[in-house]
């Protein structure tokens, strides 16, 4: 089966509510400072999947990030996040390659924006694509688990990097908003969100 057909089988198709996986958000961003999704995250689904395509920042070396709002908060600065991050990388000049923990990108009960891939290249043909899974954000009992995987071009030696991020949103209040942005500047790219029944 072609890759595109497999993806459609798993993720549905824009505008089509499949039996199990429903596309809830599909936006192409151009020169945007933030991408906020403020509807559609509720108790309807126990699992939300975000896909990022061709994310390209205006500033070199910037980090793509996310934070959330609980239902009783705003401004994306109240929910503590504890996270772990690791990366595999290889430079085109074949000088550097490794798998390592990425301490600069993790958080320990911090309420700041959580890094997804860090240190993006802003070259015209460079970008990043990835997936973020968020489990049962409407729970009012448990902390909310998430994990993410990205493939992107980093500014450091233009390395090809695969970054893995996981953590929990350490609140028992339901989450209903999520925002993505770079540390500074603007970005282009497409962000989609699905709910999985």
């Amino acid at each position: 089966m072609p890759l595109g057909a497999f993806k459609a089988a798993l993720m549905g198709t824009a505008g089509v509510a499949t039996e199990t996986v429903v596309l809830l958000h599909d936006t192409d961003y151009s020169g945007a400072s933030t991408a906020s999704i403020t509807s559609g995250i509720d108790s309807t689904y126990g699992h939300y999947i975000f896909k990022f395509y061709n994310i390209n920042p205006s500033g070199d070396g910037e980090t793509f990030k996310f934070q959330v709002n609980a239902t009783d908060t705003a401004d994306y600065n109240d929910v503590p996040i504890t996270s772990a991050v690791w990366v595999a990388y290889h430079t085109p000049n074949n000088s550097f390659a490794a798998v390592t923990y990425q301490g600069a990108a993790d958080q320990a009960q911090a309420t700041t924006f959580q890094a997804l891939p860090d240190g993006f290249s802003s070259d015209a043909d460079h970008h990043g694509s990835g997936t973020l899974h968020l489990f049962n954000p409407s729970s009012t009992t448990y902390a909310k688990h998430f994990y993410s995987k990205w493939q992107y071009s980093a500014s450091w030696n233009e390395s090809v990097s695969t970054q893995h991020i996981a953590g929990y949103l350490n609140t028992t209040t339901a989450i209903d908003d999520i925002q993505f942005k770079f540390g500074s500047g603007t970005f282009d790219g497409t962000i989609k969100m699905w709910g999985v029944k």
Partner: protein
Amino acid sequence: MTMKLLTTNTSSGAASSSFTSKIDNTYKLYIFKFYDVNPATDNSFFTFQANVVDASGYNETITSTFFSAYHDEADGNTDLQYEAARDQAEATGFQYLTNGVGNGADESCAGELYLFNPSNTTYVKHFYSRASEYYSGDYIIDNYAAGYINATGAVDDIQFKFSSGNMDGVIKMYGVG
């Protein structure tokens, strides 16, 4: 072709969560999604095993790898490590999907297990999983397990349970054609 929700098991104080129907040759890929999975006993390990057709006891032979990345809330410990204590080498025990999950009121684990073509009667059955957990020592642990069920008989049952005690949580099984 679509991803179809086949079964939802919602457990409360259960010793295990078993899927004993609908795993057949209808689908080549089965995905198990689990969340809000909370053990009654602190520092218990979330695990799974399988039965081939006509077998019972959830004791098929598994060879697997396991690694994790972790970080504590106190910001004192981080690592990316292979965990030999969580893998199996032709063993029949339950395969670890996590480390020791906390039993605190807000603590749980969540993740996915992919099982490929369990009804095949020629090849061993490959699986891989990723699970985020609230470790009992107040860490995030990002767990990766992968391996194969070393049986050429068709697999038709899957069971999840903690290494000790009962569990709460939701586990859903999907078929992908």
